[in-house]
């Protein structure tokens, strides 16, 4: 067991854990941040994605120690003062989900892409989200939502 300090959604939190424990397990089972999901445990479905220093990262295989010193942002940390992130708002408007289980990972992956490049086109969006599985098959809607968010973020940046 080791005492580690982590920055989660802007707050420093210290925790006593085995350094091999996964970041996913830490977030879900110790911090009760359950918006980040377990889907496969091998980094092949994207349900467990969180932002590490702004980059979408799969937390299910990542040892906690690798997240030390980085800014960890989960789906719970994307809205600001109750205002949804443009990607969240677009998913809601486009009804880009059915069961919703993949949604946090999809949103995190899209935020990571658009924060760097709000001009991303369909090909770039599809390739950035290719690691994420939506078993309900709402990909066409997710694509529309990410397009819409890109426009909103582009406008906000220009304005």
């Amino acid at each position, binding site marked *: 067991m080791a005492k580690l300090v982590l920055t989660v959604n802007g707050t420093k939190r210290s925790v006593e854990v085995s350094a091999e424990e996964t970041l996913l397990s830490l977030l879900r089972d110790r911090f009760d941040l359950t918006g980040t999901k377990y889907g496969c445990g*091998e980094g092949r479905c994207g349900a467990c994605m969180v932002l590490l220093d702004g980059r979408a990262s799969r937390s299910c295989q990542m040892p906690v120690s690798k997240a030390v010193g980085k800014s960890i942002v989960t*789906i719970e940390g994307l809205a600001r003062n109750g205002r949804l992130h443009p990607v969240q708002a677009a998913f809601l408007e486009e009804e880009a989900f059915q*069961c919703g289980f993949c*949604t946090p990972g999809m949103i995190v992956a899209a935020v990571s892409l658009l924060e760097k490049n709000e001009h991303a086109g369909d090909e770039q969006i599809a390739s950035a989200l290719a690691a994420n599985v939506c078993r*309900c098959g709402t990909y066409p809607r997710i694509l529309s939502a990410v397009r819409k968010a890109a426009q909103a973020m582009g406008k906000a940046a220009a304005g």
Partner: protein
Amino acid sequence: MSERRRADDPGFELVQHEIPGSLHRFDVDRRDLLKILGGGVLVCLCVPSSLAQETGRASAAREPPKELAAWLHIADDGRVTVYTGKVEVGQNIRTSLAQQVAEELRVSLADVRMVMGDTDLVPWDMGTFGSRTTPMMGRELRSVAATARELLVDMAAEKWKTSRAGLLAQAGKVSDPATRRTLTYGELTRGRKLVKVVGENPALTPAKDWKIAGTPAPKADGRDFVTGGHRYTSDLLRPGIMHGKVLRPPVFDATLVSLDSKRAEAIPGVRLVRDGDFVGVAAADPWSAERAVEALEAKWTEPASPVSNANLFADLKKKVEEGGRGLRHVAGSLEQGLASADVKLERTYSVEYIAHAPLEPRAAVAEWSGGRLTVWTGTQRPFDTRDRLAETFRLPPEKVRVIVPDTGSAYGGKHAPDAAIEAARLAKTAGRPVKLVWTREEEFTWAYFRPAGVIEVVSGARRDGGIVAWEFHNYNSGPAAIRTPYEIANQTIQFHPVRSPLRQGSYRGLAAVANHFARESHMDELALAVGMDPLQFRLKNLSDPRLRAVFEAAAERFGWGKPAAPGRGHGIAGGIEKGGYVATCAEVEIANGRRVRIRRVVEAFDCGAVVNPDGLRNQIEGAIVQGIGGALFEVVRFEKGRIVNPRFSQYRVPRFPDVPEIDVVVLDRKGEPSAGAGETPIVGLAPAVAGAIFAATGLRLRALPLVPEGLPAGTRVSPAPSGR
């Protein structure tokens, strides 16, 4: 004509929804089994009748209650609570059912809250499957709401000592236009129980007059799904909760010979549970539970299974169950039909086992308290799960409560109560609540599969394109949609049940996918044999106006008949199932001579009066995308009974790059009853794609998945003439 049992008999179909075989045999089962077998008869566990006859909610009755109050409550602030045993697994019925209630009750959608799948609170229900929610529960709740509306008018009339005839129920109020008096529903009920019997045929609002139903209302609680706020079963916490993990045997039905648990039990906070062949642990955190199970040393004897993918289809044909369970439909004389045919074909089609792979794996949280058991779990059958828990733990059903949080999808895959039973067994010994979440590997291995099957078709047609003989045998995959919608005088259609080598059960559309794949592929083959265009050939043999209409609508939007671009091909398929009419057109492109890419899909769908147009489109799009997996590449690989690809890295599911341009045409028929839409939109995709591959390559693929490893090397890619 003889017909032992109709394919659309819900009792018959239920057979496919029941998951045979239990994952665990607890010791207590064996002791009881000996007692039972000692008497030479099989006795069911009977619940004392005093408990079974408890009335109202939570009753053990197997009929929908007639009392209004069991279904609906209006609080003094006018808010409406509706109780239903259906569960939300992504099909959006929390929204669509609430729309139907709001419509009939004349309240705003925001004032309706649905309590779903909580066995202590809602009326008994068989389960959420078979596309029954919209046609049956939707109708039931509309009747409930209409009865409540009329009762509220009666109550206002009584209060005002006036005739009910001139009173209006609208916007959550009853008003008297003559006197301009109004009373809100809350003022009328003051939160009291609504006492009335739900009418047999209350006046329901026709779909053409709908204002709330029939509109694209957004998903209930949608915001919780984009903020991570929604709590699925796997996200729940209870005070003092422990985390469970089960030791899985090497294969299904293995027997535990010995167990050394010393190292596992040495891990702090670990509680071992061994009961019969069931071995599991509860621990303070999932990490420790996992380490503990890894530290267990178990020896098993494995039943020998000689079956692998390589000999699966021969095995299915060999193990046909004799006796009356198979459906058989005979009309006319096959022999005479074949004798009059100019063209005869005999073909065999097959489908592999595939997995549902819901993104939320099976999970349960179990808590024992004061002799009562409460289990939160993602199941499509909360009451069946309750009954199975009651049987397993020797409790009257009233002592067991099952609660289903809105679940991370199911697709027919969450009928079995296994995770609930496992969590409850662990919690019983641990003396604390236990959460159990299956790993992806467990999900792929220990759930159950969409049945594999072999389908043999013999057919005959005249030169003019009229089909005169149709013989269709389905081995194991199932009887759903086995009957042909085409007009054929001479037919023999039979489903042959088989002892499946793998655990199998319900799946989106059941066997309708396999039966449509075989039937519609064969229609293409017959069309070719008589030299007709696939669409024209179908229309020639089809009289059902609604099926004709979806074929024509899909063909028109798709541009059927226009030549495909070089390297591409077009296919078309359709059918009728569970009250829905579907036609699908697909365009495929052959990349690098090997890879099949679906570029464009147009689907026309008619499920009667549409309750939520956007939710419906979402379901249709999703079914098409899910259908791509089973059509092109999904297959459960197994060797001598052992699953060998239980991971997303080994079992390919559709992802972004697999998704074509999708165009959905909805035929909204306001005059027809609303049918379910979660299943039938999946059935046309595979045969349409198979037809398109044939059109592009001349290669007729008769096995699903069509191209798990891509097209065979040396496949010639050329634009075939239209209709070939």
